[in-house]
């Protein structure tokens, strides 16, 4: 029995599912209780699971991360919400110095099965600091998995996987598409794998690689290109650490051409890692340089200019055409 729902509903569904299945799962964050989260991702959970398991914390993200790590060290499975990714920076010392390495530094005596959820990205006319994409900062840290869904169904399946993962997972939710589309999601408790890309569309002429909200524009670009008879393979990376090289390399070895799309700034974004890997390990397969369509190397502007910053489908089409024209 599957119901049509938005991504934020799917997040809520996955949380409820795991809270129900596993009493070690607890939620903590700011405004996640009575208020049900500023995006309503935790709506109804306090009522259903009580204040011992759904905890509004004092206002401090470093606290939230530290609490969650302490809880996780005792075998709980905390799922913490950071209200916006722009406020995730205070958690970084805890995540890098402790969360990512609790298992390693105790040689497995203790571990850190926690999930940090945070909405991220631009495009919703939000105030300052509410629109950035800094996934590359987290994906560079050994020990932290970084997972980003791009549809309601993948949000459900990947979040289940993240909560069940015995190690820490940063789960970034592209808020621009929180409510953009509805999709049937069945509450079947089936998790998706955390270490594979999802090939959303098969194609032969060019591989378009993206994640999160930009999957929307990427698919639109693929549609537009299809009208000109160009067959795009579209891959949702989904997990930025650890990266599924096999799927990406196989696709590019087939198409020989590739455009990588992300909102985050160009310089040092995760597009660089993917582009570098494709060229280093698939140089002979490449018929054209890999292209990156990304945000600028500037600070995400306030919302009046945000569409001047965010890549759009025309940018992707343009980059794909240039790549295809390369001989």
């Amino acid at each position: 029995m599957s119901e049509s729902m938005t991504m934020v509903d799917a997040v809520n569904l996955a949380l409820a599912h795991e809270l129900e299945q596993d009493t070690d799962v607890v939620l903590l964050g700011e405004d996640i209780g009575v208020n049900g989260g500023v995006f309503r991702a935790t709506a109804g959970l306090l009522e259903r699971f009580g204040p011992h398991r759904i905890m509004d914390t004092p206002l401090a993200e470093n606290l939230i991360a530290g609490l969650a790590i302490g809880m996780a060290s005792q075998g709980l499975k905390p799922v913490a919400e950071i209200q916006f990714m722009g406020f995730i920076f205070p958690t970084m010392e805890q995540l890098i110095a402790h969360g990512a390495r609790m298992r390693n530094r105790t040689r497995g005596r203790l571990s850190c099965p926690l999930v940090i959820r945070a909405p991220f990205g631009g495009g919703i006319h939000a105030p300052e600091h509410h629109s950035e994409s800094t996934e590359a900062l987290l994906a560079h840290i050994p020990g932290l998995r970084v997972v980003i869904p791009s549809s309601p169904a993948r949000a459900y399946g990947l979040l289940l996987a993240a909560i069940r993962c015995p190690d820490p997972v940063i789960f970034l939710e592209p808020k621009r598409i929180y409510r953009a589309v509805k999709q049937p999601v069945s509450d079947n408790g089936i998790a998706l794998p955390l270490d594979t890309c999802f090939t959303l569309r098969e194609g032969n002429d060019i591989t378009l690689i993206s994640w999160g909200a930009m999957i929307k524009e990427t698919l639109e670009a693929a549609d537009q290109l299809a009208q000109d008879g160009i067959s795009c393979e579209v891959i949702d990376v989904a997990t930025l650490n650890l990266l599924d090289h096999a799927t990406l390399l196989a696709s590019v070895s087939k198409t020989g051409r590739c455009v990588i799309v992300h909102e985050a700034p160009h310089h040092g974004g995760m597009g660089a890692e993917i582009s570098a890997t494709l060229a280093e390990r698939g140089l002979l397969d490449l018929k054209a340089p890999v292209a990156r369509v990304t945000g600028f190397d500037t600070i995400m502007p306030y919302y009046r200019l945000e569409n001047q910053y965010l890549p759009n489908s025309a940018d992707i089409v343009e980059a794909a055409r240039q790549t295809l024209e390369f001989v």
Partner: protein
Amino acid sequence: MTIAYQGEILFSRYLDATGKAVDTVPEWAEQPDTLVEYYRQMTLARLFDSKAIALQRTGQLGTYPSMLGGEAIDIPTAALMQAEDVLIPYYRNHAMQVMRGIEWRDVLLYWGGDERGSANPAQGQDLPNCVPIATQCLHACGVAAAFRIRDEKRVAVTLCGDGATSKGDFLEALNVAGTWQLPLVFIINNNQWAISVPRAMQCGAPTLAQKALGAGLRGEQVDGNDVIAVHQAVSRALERARAGKGPSVIEAISYRLSDHTTADDATRYRSNEELKAAWEREPIKRLRNYLHDRGWWDENRETQWQQTANARVQQAVQDYLATAPDSAGAQFDHLYATLPVQLSEQRERAIRQAEPGGRHHE
């Protein structure tokens, strides 16, 4: 056992909820000038607030945090600061910023998604709005330290909410301010809520002012709906700071009469009764009653003033709406002191794609 430390927090209030004096009011409050001016500024702020919310509701402004209920804290504080002092605001102190030099238009620009809202040179070295909770408290320490390093008799004033007092930044700031005896005033607008989290869930202590004691500095609590009490506390704190006698923390007890921001719906998490009760204690009515009782204000003046105030706000809205978006290249023009060669290609692309026919033309 011996006593190693004793401390206390005093609470002060001059006017009760109806505007009756419950304590001997200070001399200046026996004269109309200051209080009438406060009243004007407070009502102007409230008027602006309702206009800004209306703009947001009609899609003409982004998310906007209202000042409703905080007027008696912000207005006397801004009024008492010297021009050469530095304000380090949080995101709810629009009226203070305007009193210190910017235009109401600038406030709309900022919340309307335009960086130029923080660019007005009239505000001098004041810091811009601060959204990441409590981070501004540390800037305030840096500003105050700069005064000390340069041996200037200036004071830094910073504000934050009750929720902000839970974040490490606030406490680190108090700690260094106390250790270095910085010329600094911290004002907590304890409006009882941090979005949906009530004051009691932020901190187990009976007052927030006592966080000052932990850091070895002065703390006091005032009725933040009482403009006289706030004036007194802020004067004390500014004088001490300016005289080199160190920093203070003022917890002003108010109530957030609005939703957290226009993106919030407070009926989800708080009761109508509580809100109604808070409206009984609100700052403007209290002051108006006091002014009326003294014969310093009346319906006539109210009507006239409302007209003036309305005109100002209307003008601000017009100016705001008439401001075209910044150029696409502006994203690059102020990031570094000079445009690095590495960004020039990106900048040109941004400009090109925003032009008519460009991929991002809107």
